[in-house]
Each structure stands twice: as structure tokens, then as C-alpha cells.
């Protein structure tokens, strides 16, 4: 067991899978020789050779489409889209092809593949390096959508995703690659090396898809969050002085309704937090689920805190980002409702 960054944990997951199964292949823009712009695939080509880990042309539809063909052959591609913002050219291949092969062929062809992509803001990436497109995937039948928030989960979830026989969208909050982020952008980041969740076991283990984790137990209000927002919510709970229970969803589809409903039934209040824009975001799904399943336990309306419905701005990043202050305000509001 060693302390690892999320980048190292993700790399470790691919390494473990490539070691165990010759059919696991890794490719994408810059992922081969260089190891990816975030270095998630560093060393894999040297270790496994060019036919297991290689560079792809700058053609996202081609990367995903080729992976669909490889998966139909029987390989297990784990591919990288350099930034989630560049998956739009590949969207058709993901939505109409990967997601539906099993269904439309009645299981004759399947797309056991993982599409990894860095998401989220907080790095001054502007409009084209900051988006959180999870709702565009959770809306699609046949896809699974996963968002880890720490090195331990990232490795365990990615191994589970690579071993899964359905196509999995694996969204990596890039702001968390090197350390947790509590939304206090003017404070230095604690590296994962000094954080308990930086402990990553060696070798093979999985974190099952579809199971949420309680990050902080509390009795007054349930916060539903994932990715960077888990840490923001922790800071907000402290700032607001509210005994919040923080549920980290980890996988959005399939989602863990049991854990969500049990927590809200206990606390009677719920705040949903995500970084993506508010309207039709995954938070809308979560608040509807809570309303449908926990209505008689609720003592206040479910509240959502999210990115504004604007493109992700560059200079105003911190006004856009749903930071701890906004989440704390929502926590106080539901407590007073």
C-alpha cells in the first residue's frame, strides 16, 4: 500500500488490468509515447508495447468508433478523450453505437469499453477545458457513468469499469488529479500524499459500480454530491456549522437509490450539489428521485446548488464554480425552511 495521486491511481488501474488481461488496450491522443497530457498512461507503452498502448489521430469520433469495432472483436479498449469538452465529435459513436450495440444485436455484439475523460473546472481552463457533461451521458440508456473523487475510488472504480461488460463513461475531475479540492481556491491544496484517501492498495481490487459512499455521517441534512463537490460540501458543512451527511454517489448510472433514500429518510432534508450547469443537470434527476421516494420524510424542499446556466467563463471561474459559500448558504436555507 502506498500513497498515490489520482493520476497515479488511474494509471495503476490500467496497469493492473493490462497485466491481467491481454485484451485490455489503451489509446487516445498523446497517450502512447508521452503518456497523456495529464500523464495518466505514462509508462504503459514502454511496459506493454505499441499494440497495447498507442497514440491516436486527433479524431474523437474515430477514437471511439475504432474502440467500438475493437470491442465488437473482443478487445476491451480503455480509451482517453483528452478533455471531456472534446467528446462532442464522438458523441454519436458513444450514444448511437457503443450504448446500443448489445440491445440492437440482442447480445451478439457488445461494447465492453471504457471512455475516460477529464472533466470539471477550477483550473482556469476556460469554456473548452472545464465542462461537466455527465447529464449528457446519464440520459442515455445503455451507458454507465462513473465519477470518482479520490485515488482509492478512482483505481477501484476504473478496474470495475474495465472489467464491466457494458460501455462505461469514466469522468475524472481534473481538479482532483493531484489533491483534494475544498473549493477554497485561495488556499494551497493539500496533496494526496497527506490525505487519508491517498492510500491506494497495490494490485487488484474493485469498488463496485452503483454503490454510493457516505463521506461524512450527519443527522440534519443529506448532501448528494460527486467528484470535486464532495470536498466542497465538506467545507461548506463546517462553514455553516450544520451536521450534514455527505453522500458521494460515485456512479451516477446505475445510481444507489437505497443509500440516497435511507440518508434522506434519516435527515429529512436534502441539498444536491454539482458543478455542471443547473438546468436539466443530473441534480434534477436526484431531486426528483428524492421527491418521489422520500416525500413523507421531507421537512424542507430539496435544494440544488450548481454551476450557472452560462458557458464556463475564464476569468470569472470562481464566481461560476459552486464553492463552499454557496453550498453553505443552501444548507442554512434548508435548515431554516
Amino acid at each position, binding site marked *: 500500500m502506498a500513497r498515490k495521486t489520482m493520476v497515479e491511481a488511474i494509471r495503476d488501474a490500467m496497469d493492473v488490468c493490462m497485466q491481467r488481461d491481454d485484451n485490455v488496450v489503451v489509446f487516445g491522443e498523446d497517450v502512447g509515447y508521452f503518456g497523456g497530457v495529464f500523464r495518466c498512461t505514462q509508462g504503459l507503452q514502454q511496459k506493454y508495447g505499441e*499494440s497495447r498502448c498507442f497514440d491516436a489521430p486527433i*479524431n474523437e*469520433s474515430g477514437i471511439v468508433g475504432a474502440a467500438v469495432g475493437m470491442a465488437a472483436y473482443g478487445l476491451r479498449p480503455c480509451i482517453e478523450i483528452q478533455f471531456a469538452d472534446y467528446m462532442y465529435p464522438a458523441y454519436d459513436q458513444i450514444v448511437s453505437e457503443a450504448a446500443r450495440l448489445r440491445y440492437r444485436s440482442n447480445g451478439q455484439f457488445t461494447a465492453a469499453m471504457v471512455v475516460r475523460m477529464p472533466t470539471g473546472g477550477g483550473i482556469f481552463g476556460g469554456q473548452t477545458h472545464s465542462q461537466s457533461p455527465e447529464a449528457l451521458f446519464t440520459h442515455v440508456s445503455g451507458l454507465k457513468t462513473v465519477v470518482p473523487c479520490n485515488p482509492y475510488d478512482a483505481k477501484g472504480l476504473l478496474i470495475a469499469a474495465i472489467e464491466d461488460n457494458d460501455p462505461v463513461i469514466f469522468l475524472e475531475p481534473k481538479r482532483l488529479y493531484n489533491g483534494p479540492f475544498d473549493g477554497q481556491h485561495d488556499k494551497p491544496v493539500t496533496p494526496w500524499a497527506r490525505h487519508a484517501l491517498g492510500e491506494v492498495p497495490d494490485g487488484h481490487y474493485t469498488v463496485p459500480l452503483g454503490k454510493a459512499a457516505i463521506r461524512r455521517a450527519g443527522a440534519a441534512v443529506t448532501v448528494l454530491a460527486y467528484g470535486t463537490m464532495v470536498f466542497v460540501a465538506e467545507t461548506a458543512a463546517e462553514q455553516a456549522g450544520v451536521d450534514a451527511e455527505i453522500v458521494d454517489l460515485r456512479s451516477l448510472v446505475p445510481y444507489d437509490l437505497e443509500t440516497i433514500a435511507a440518508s434522506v429518510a434519516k435527515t429529512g432534508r436534502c441539498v444536491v450539489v454539482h458543478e455542471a450547469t443547473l438546468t436539466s443537470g443530473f441534480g434534477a434527476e436526484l431531486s426528483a428521485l428524492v421527491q418521489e421516494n422520500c416525500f413523507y420524510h421531507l421537512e424542507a424542499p430539496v435544494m440544488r446548488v450548481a454551476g450557472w446556466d452560462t458557458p464556463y467563463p475564464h476569468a470569472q471561474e470562481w464566481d461560476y464554480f459552486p464553492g463552499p459559500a454557496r453550498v453553505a448558504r443552501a444548507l442554512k436555507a434548508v435548515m431554516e425552511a
Partner: protein
Amino acid sequence: MSGPTPLSFHVPGPAVRPGGAPDFSDVPISRAGEVRRPEVDAAPEDIRDLAFSIIRVLNRDSEAVGPWAGLLSDAELLEGLRHMMTLRTFDARMQMAQRQGKTSFYMQHLGEEAVSCAFRKALAPGDMNFPTYRQAGLLIAGGYPMLDMMCQIYSNELDPLKGRQLPVLYSSREHGFFTVSGNLATQYIQAVGWAMASAMKGDTKIAAGWIGDGSTAESDFHAGLVFASTYKAPVVLNIVNNQWAISTFQGIARGGSGTFAARGLGFGIPALRVDGNDYLAVHAVARWAVGRARRNLGPTLIEHVTYRVGAHSTSDDPSVYRPKAESDAWPLGDPVLRLRNHLIRRGAWSEERHRQAEAEILSTVIAVQKEAEGHGTLHSGPHPSARDMFEGVYETMPPHLRRQRQQGGV
């Protein structure tokens, strides 16, 4: 000094529209036997001319001539004729079944039968096609049961795809036929990916991609060429140029480039044009390209030059956008008649036997159709259960889908 002259916008159009006289006189057609046959390991830059000619074997006198002739025995040619006749009869019956309201939709191959039927015979077991909706000949010539095809079209209780797919969007892994998508061109890059995988695993199987002339305008066509050329994938990339997309003539997708095959040249991919109505030529060119792929020499692009005689689909009315007699004016003839005449000329067939074969095939197809209809049609009789609708979205049904199935009461 005068100012700049106003620019004008250019939209290409076909030579004629309804009411006009069909005219293919400006379509350059090579003579049968005229185009050379390079070695399969020829360097792409040495055979660039093949992207602009048309490889043809059968001449006007129904003889097989030139360097691409002589690959098939009489028995193989007779089998090919039977496949094409079967496909044509199958199409006619299913087209009628759609008109009778037994299914929602149908797409026929009239005039294009040689392309998929002849190509299929150049492949080996285990190879994989990534077809569009107009390559059912791959299944017929590959021995896929016609009953399964009809049950898919009828979405009945025996539909191998459980009523989840539009008619004619077949899927058979066993018969080397990748599940067809309604989204055009997506399968082209998938074929390349499949071929890359075969090479990555040191396998011996190859893939074939299929696309229509109109769909070559899609980005995935270009993605396929980039990947095939970059990784020298063992894939045969077919373009079926049947002159028309729906109402849009091929020039809208082709723009200024000389031919569709020429699209391959910038990628360093050997590109050949073939007479798509000549069973022998299609088969010979397919064998050449498959041989290249099999010998690890990389991808080949084939433009099959043909003509879509029928409507685009049962929802189309071609008389609105092209002269009715245009298909008769098509200079490359009818693939079934051409092969029939060749076999007669060789003494291996006769008009009498052809008529018999037609009657025999028709009664077989009708018998299978009766059997298929006994298992239901789209609007009557047994069909797949609503419960099936929820299966197969994921390997195992996630809780939210299970709840929805319960709510649906199935």
C-alpha cells in the same frame, strides 16, 4: 477602378431532372478487359490510375475478358446467379409485404445485387462485414437463413433481434454481419477498429466496411480513412456509388473530386473502381483487396459503380427527382441479366433453365414467407413480449430499469 465583382454561389446538380432525357454520355466507362491488374503488393502510388478507370470483365458480347477474368468456375458463377436471383425475389416479396401493411418499411437492392453477393464470396469464415442497409446479399450469399431475415422484417416472435430494430437492420455475428445502425457511416470506422484489433491480436481475420456514395460526406467516413491509413489496418473499405442518396445526386457528396475512389489517394490507400453490375469484376476486385489485407499489406478502397434502380426505400418516390427511364439508360446494364447471358454464352445455362430457376426460387421464397408469417407480422399475430424490451440494455438489469419494468407491468 471598379470594385470587386460579386461572388456567386455554386450548387452542383444532376445532368437531368424528370421530364428530361436521361443521359450518361459524359460518364467515362472503361472497356471490359481494358484495365490492368497489378500485383496485390503494388505500391499505392503506382496504381493511382485505378481510382479513375472502371474495372470490368463482362463485355457486350457476354464474354469474360481481360486480366481480371477467369477466377470463377461455372459452378461458382451459377451459385452467384442464384444468390442474386434470390435476393431480387426476396426484395420483391418483402416490398409487397410492406405495401400490404405487414411491416413498416423495406429497402431493396434492385440493380445492385452483384455488389454484396459477389463480394461475400471473396471472404473467409470469421471475417467481419460492417454493412449498411443495402448489403443483404452478404447474408444471402453467406448462407444466413432467409426465415430469420423475414422474421426480423416482420418483428415477429422469431425475430432474432426481438423486435428492437427496424426491418432490414439485420445482425449476425456468426455470418460475419455486424449489427446495422440507422445512423449512416458510423460503422465505417468501426470496421477499421475491428480490423486493427485483428492485427493487434496477430489474428488472420479481416474486416470489410460499407458505405453509400451519399454517406461518404459524413465525418466517420474520413475518420475511417485516417485510421485505416495510419495503422495500415487489414480492412477493405467499400463505397457503393449507386448515383443517388435519397433525392440527392452523388455530386453533392463528391464535390469537385474526380471520383469517390480518388478520396483514398490522399491517404495513400490503394483505390480501385469496379463495375458494380458485373459479378465477375466485383468478385475479382474483392479477391484482390481481401488478398492484400490478408497479406498484411493494409487497406484498400473500392468504389463500386452501380445504379439504384428501385426507390431508396418504401418511403421514397424517385419519379419526383429523376427521369423514370434513367435506370434503363444506365450504361452498365443489369447484373442478373449480364451474368445469365454470360453463362448461356458459356453453354452452362439456358433461357429455359433460367425461367425454371426463377419459378423455383419464387416458390421457395413464398414458402419461407408463409412460414415466417405463421409466426406473426408487425401488426398481427405473435410478436416479442414487452418484457423483452427491457432486456439487453445492460448485461444485467440495473435497479432503476427493473423498477420501470415493474411499473410497466411486464
